[in-house]
C-alpha cells in the first residue's frame, strides 16, 4: 500500500507537493490509516509536511482549503512527534539533526523507515550517522522480511548502544534458528564493547564517591590527628556547610536573580567560614576543657551534634530544603555509549583536588602548617620549644571544621539537604580516617579512594547494602592487621 502511495506521489506534479490522498486519510481514516498517512507525508521530506502535521496534532486537517476536525489520541500524537523529528533529520543544521536523531534512536514507528534511509544516504556527520544507522536497523528488525532482519542484526552488532543490546537480546530468543544465531553473535560483540563503557562508568563512580569521602574525612583527619579526639559533630558541620549554601542561594535569588548562577562562588567561602566559626566556638567552649579525656570528648561532641541537628530543624524545618544547581553544574557529558558523567560530580572531583592541594600547601608551606604538624607529632615537645599549642588547636580545629563546611557545600550540589545530612556521612568518614591512619594526608587520600572504589565495585556486583556491609567488615578485619591504619607514623612509644 505504502509503495503504491509512494508511486502515486512520485508521479504527481511537483507543484502538488502535499499528497492529497494522504491528507484525506489523515482527515477521515481510522487510526491505522492515519499513521500510514503520516508516514506517506514524510517520505519525500517536504518541509510543508511539517506544518500539516503540526496542525494535525492540534486536531485540524485542511483538505482543499477546508478545515476538518479530527480526534488525536496518544498513539497518533507520538507518531506525529516521531515524524516531526524525522523531518528534522533533513535539516541543514547539525545540532538540529543530532537532536532529532537522538529522539528517534529510542524507537520509532516502522512507517518512518523510508525517510530515515533517505536521511542516512545524505548524512556525513560522524556523530549522527551511527545513530541513524541504529534507528534504521531497529526499524528493519521489526519488519517481517528475514533477509532484512539478518542484515539489520549484523549492523546492530557493529554499534555500541544499550538500545541495540536490548533489541538483540529480544532477537536472540527468536523462533527462527538463523536469526537466533546471528543475533547471539552480534549480542556478544555489542556486550564486549559496552562492558568497557560500563567499566569506565564504574571507575568514574568510584572516583566520585572517593572524592566525596575525601572531602568529608579530610577535616576529621586533621582534628583527630592533632588532638586525638573524635569529633562526633563533624557530620553536623558538614550539614551546616550545606545549609549555608542554601542560605546563600536564597540571598542570591532574592537580591541578584541575574547572577544566580554565580551563587556557588560566594557559597564556597561562606560555608567554609561559617562552619569554621562554629568549629572554633566548639573547641573553645567544650573540647578544650576535656583535654586528655578522649572518650568524654566523644560523648560531649555527640551531644553538640544532637543540639545542632535540632536547631537546624527548628530554624529550617525538618523537611529537606531545595538547593538548585547553577546552570553550568547541571547536565553532563556523554563519555561512552550509555555512560553520562554529570557536571556536578565532575565539579566535585575537581573541587576535592583543589581543596586537597590547598590543604597540602597550607600544611607544608605556612607557619601555621608547621605548628600543626609539630603538635601532631609530639605535643609536649612542641610546647617546650614555644609553639602556642592552645592557639594552634583552635585554628586547626577551625580549619578542619571549615573543610567540613566545604564538603557540605559540595554535597548540596548532588544530594538532599536535610537536618540528618551529616549523620549519613559520619560513619563513612570515620572509616576513612581509621583506614588511612592519621598524621599524613596521603593516608586519607588513599583510604578515601580505595573505599570509594570498593564500595562502587561491590555495589555493581551485589547491591548497595551488601557492599556497605562488606566494606565495614573489611575495615574491621583490616584493623586487626594494621591497627594504626595504612599510613602510620612510626614511633617507639608503647601507647602510640
Amino acid at each position: 500500500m505504502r509503495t503504491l502511495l509512494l508511486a502515486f506521489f512520485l508521479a504527481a506534479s511537483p507543484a502538488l507537493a502535499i499528497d492529497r490522498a494522504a491528507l484525506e486519510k489523515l482527515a477521515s481514516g481510522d487510526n491505522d490509516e492515519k499513521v500510514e498517512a503520516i508516514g506517506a507525508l514524510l517520505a519525500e521530506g517536504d518541509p510543508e509536511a511539517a506544518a500539516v502535521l503540526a496542525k494535525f496534532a492540534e486536531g485540524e486537517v485542511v483538505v482543499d482549503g477546508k478545515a476538518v476536525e479530527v480526534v488525536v489520541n496518544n498513539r497518533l500524537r507520538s507518531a506525529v512527534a516521531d515524524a516531526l523529528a524525522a523531518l528534522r533529520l533533513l535539516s541543514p543544521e547539525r545540532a538540529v539533526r543530532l537532536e532529532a536523531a537522538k529522539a528517534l534512536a529510542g524507537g520509532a514507528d516502522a512507517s518512518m523507515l523510508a525517510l530515515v534511509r533517505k536521511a542516512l544516504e545524505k548524512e556525513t556527520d560522524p556523530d549522527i550517522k551511527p545513530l541513524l544507522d541504529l534507528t534504521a536497523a531497529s526499524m528493519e528488525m521489526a519488519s517481517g522480511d528475514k533477509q532484512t532482519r539478518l542484515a539489520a542484526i549484523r549492523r546492530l552488532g557493529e554499534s555500541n548502544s544499550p538500545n541495540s543490546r536490548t533489541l538483540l537480546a529480544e532477537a536472540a530468543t527468536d523462533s527462527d534458528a538463523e536469526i537466533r544465531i546471528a543475533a547471539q553473535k552480534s549480542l556478544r560483540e555489542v556486550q564486549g564493547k559496552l562492558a568497557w563503557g560500563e567499566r569506565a562508568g564504574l571507575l568514574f563512580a568510584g572516583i566520585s564517591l572517593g572524592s566525596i569521602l575525601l572531602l568529608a574525612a579530610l577535616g576529621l583527619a586533621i582534628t583527630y590527628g592533632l588532638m586525638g579526639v573524635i569529633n562526633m559533630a563533624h557530620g553536623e558541620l558538614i550539614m551546616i556547610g550545606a545549609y549555608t549554601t542554601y542560605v546563600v542561594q536564597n540571598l542570591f535569588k532574592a537580591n541578584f536573580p541575574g547572577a544566580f548562577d554565580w551563587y556557588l562562588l560566594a557559597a564556597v567561602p561562606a560555608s567554609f567560614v561559617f562552619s569554621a566559626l562554629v568549629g572554633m566556638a566548639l573547641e573553645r567552649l567544650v573540647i578544650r576543657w576535656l583535654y586528655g579525656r578522649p572518650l568524654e570528648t566523644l560523648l560531649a561532641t555527640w551531644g553538640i551534634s544532637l543540639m545542632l541537628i535540632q536547631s537546624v530543624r527548628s530554624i529550617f524545618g525538618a523537611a529537606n530544603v531545595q538547593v538548585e544547581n547553577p546552570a553550568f553544574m547541571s547536565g553532563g557529558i556523554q563519555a561512552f555509549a550509555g555512560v553520562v558523567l554529570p557536571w556536578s560530580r565532575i565539579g566535585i572531583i575537581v573541587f576535592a583536588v583543589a581543596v586537597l592541594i590547598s590543604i597540602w600547601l597550607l600544611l607544608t608551606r605556612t607557619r601555621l602548617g608547621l605548628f600543626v604538624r609539630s603538635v601532631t607529632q609530639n605535643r609536649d615537645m612542641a610546647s617546650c620549644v614555644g609553639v602556642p599549642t592552645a592557639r594552634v588547636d583552635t585554628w586547626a580545629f577551625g580549619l578542619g571544621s571549615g573543610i567540613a563546611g566545604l564538603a557540605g557545600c559540595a554535597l548540596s550540589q548532588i544530594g538532599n539537604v536535610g537536618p540528618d545530612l551529616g549523620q549519613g556521612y559520619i560513619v563513612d568518614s570515620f572509616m576513612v580516617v581509621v583506614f588511612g591512619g592519621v598524621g599524613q594526608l596521603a593516608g586519607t587520600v588513599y583510604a578515601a579512594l580505595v573505599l570509594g572504589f570498593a564500595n562502587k565495585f561491590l555495589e555493581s556486583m551485589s547491591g548497595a547494602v551488601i557492599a556497605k556491609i562488606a566494606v565495614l567488615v573489611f575495615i574491621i578485619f583490616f584493623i586487626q592487621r594494621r591497627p594504626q591504619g595504612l599510613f602510620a607514623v612510626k614511633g617507639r612509644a608503647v601507647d602510640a
Partner: protein
Amino acid sequence: MSATSGRLYGRKGWVVLGVFAFILFAIFPVLSLKISPDSPLHLSQYWVTLIGKIMCYAIVAIAMDLAWGYGGILSLGHGLFFALGGYSMGMYLMRQIGREGQYQSDLPDFMVFLDWKEFPWQWWNTDQFWWAALLVVLVPGLLALVFGFFAFRSRVKGVYFSIITQALTFAAMLLFFRNATGFGGNNGFTDFKRILGLPITTPETRMVLFVCTGFFLIGTLLLGRWIVTSKFGRVLAAIRDAETRVAFCGYNTVHYKLAIFTLSAVICGIAGALYVPQVGIINPSEMSPANSIEIAIWVAVGGRGTLGGAIVGAGLVNYAKSFFTQVFPEYWLYALGLIFILVTLFLPQGVMGFFNRKNK
C-alpha cells in the same frame, strides 16, 4: 556468706537494696493487680510498661558500666547486643503467634508476604523456648567473644575501639533492614500474642515479666558488685588506669578485657530478651549508632564505676525522655544534647559522684 555480703555492700547499702526490692516485688504488683483501676493508687499498664522498660535499660547500663567504668572499654555497639537478644526472643514470640496472624499461616506474616514457603535456617528450632533462651545468651556472647578477641589482640583501644564497635552496629543495622536477612526487614517483629502459652497482654503476664526483670536487675547488680570487688575486678580497674603497666606486671590484659566485654554483651542480650515481650516490638532501629551512644550517657549521668549509678542514670535519662517526648517533643534533643555536654564537662563523676562528694 556474711563475709561476701559485707564485701558487696555495707549495712546502709543492703537496706537501700532491700527497700528497692520490696517496692519492686511487693508494692508494685499489689498496686497494679489488687487495687481497682478507679483508685488513684492504681498502677496503670502505662507505668508498668515504662518502669519495666527502664529496668531493662538499667540492666544494659550496668553491663556498660562494667565494661566502660571498670574496664575502660567504651563500646558504642552495646545496642547491637541488646537488639540481638531481643531478636532471639522475638523469633520465639513470633512462633508463638501460631496461625493467628493475618494470613493464618504457620509462617509469620512477613514471610507469607515475601512468599517464602518455609522457615530459613536462622529460625531452626526457635519454637522451643529453651533454644530461644540459649540463643539470647549465645548470639551476643559469641559475637562479642570473636569480635573482642580480634580487637583486643591487635591492641585496638580507646576511641578507635569505640569507632569500630559503632561501625559494627551500623553494619548490623543495615543487614537487619534487608528483608532477605529473614528478620522482618524494616518492621521487625511485632503483634506478639503469647509467651510460654500465656496471653502476653494481660496485666498478670505483664506483672510476671516485670518481676522477672526486677529480679534480673538486682541479680546483675549483685553479680557486678561481686566481680568488681574480686581480684579480677581490681586487675580490670588497673588495666583501665594503666594497661601497659599491668601487662608488664605479667597479666595477660587481653583475657581480662575479653571476659568483661563478653559478659557485658551477654547481660545486654538478656536485657533485650526481657525488653521485647514487655514493649511488644523489636526492629533494626534499636541497632542505630545513636541508641548505643545513649547507653553511654546513662552511665555517665549516673557516674562511671559505681554500678548503682548506672541504674540511677538509666532511670533519670529515660524518665526525662518519656516526659519530654510527651510534653515538649521539640526540645528533647536539646535536653539530651545538653545532658551530654554538661555531664562530661561539670559532672565527670556523675550524680553518684556529686552525692559522694557532698557526704565527705
